[in-house]
């Protein structure tokens, strides 16, 4: 299956849906900082991988797919849930990339902070995409 880039899909998202993501993402970043300051880096680091905007994103996906199907005269409730489930399956694979990100930060940040961030981001993308391809081959 070929990965497709569809910028037109952005028009489906309404302005207040972006606002919800912005506020949730900003709030979670503040909360992660507060937790790290209060409880230290061991607990604080856990919250760098907290599914803060996952509930909002999954709900939006379900809603968008349901509306699109119902507009076409098709039953959309089940399709909406299936689309959100597929997104969650992708996030499960992406989590391994996030673990690779944390591993590179742990091992490299003291020696070379700038390169650690670059390699960590590259590791996240490489492991996540590789995981997705492996999952499709199995």
């Amino acid at each position, binding site marked *: 299956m070929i990965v497709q880039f569809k910028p037109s899909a952005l028009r489906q998202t309404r302005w207040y849906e972006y606002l919800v993501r912005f506020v949730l993402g900003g709030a979670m970043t503040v909360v992660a900082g507060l937790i790290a300051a209060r409880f230290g880096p061991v607990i604080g680091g856990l919250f*760098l991988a907290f599914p803060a905007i996952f509930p909002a994103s999954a709900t939006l*996906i379900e809603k968008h797919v349901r509306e699109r199907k119902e507009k076409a005269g098709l039953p959309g409730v089940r399709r909406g849930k299936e689309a959100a489930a597929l997104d969650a399956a992708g996030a499960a694979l992406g989590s*391994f990339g996030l673990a690779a990100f944390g591993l590179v930060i742990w091992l490299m940040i003291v020696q070379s902070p700038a390169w650690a961030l670059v390699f960590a981001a590259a590791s996240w993308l490489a492991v996540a995409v590789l995981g997705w391809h492996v999952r499709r081959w199995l």
Partner: protein
Amino acid sequence: MLEYGLRFLAGGIAVCAFAALGDTLRPKSFAGLFGAAPSIALATLLLTLSQKGAPFVALEGRSMILGAFALALYSWSVCVLLKNFLLSSWTATMAALIVWFAVALGASAALFQLS
């Protein structure tokens, strides 16, 4: 206060950017990879690095590995709740949070004594 204002702004922008990128990608399972993007980490690590130093960030990175495995189990649980139990997305994602907390805090207590 300024620090937390900057965190809010950086986190909001990073989360929106990754979410918008995910919106534009098909198939949905591939787009889902961006649901586990290091958006909060990227937004916050530079600030933490400048204020608390690299050893503090290294410990955060180590804990982030456990948080990420908790996120993998959380996401898988959401997938099962949606496909097999046909819960709504909101109910499934909120109910599965218990999995994230149990795995992240449990593994952290077992491996690092929550130090």
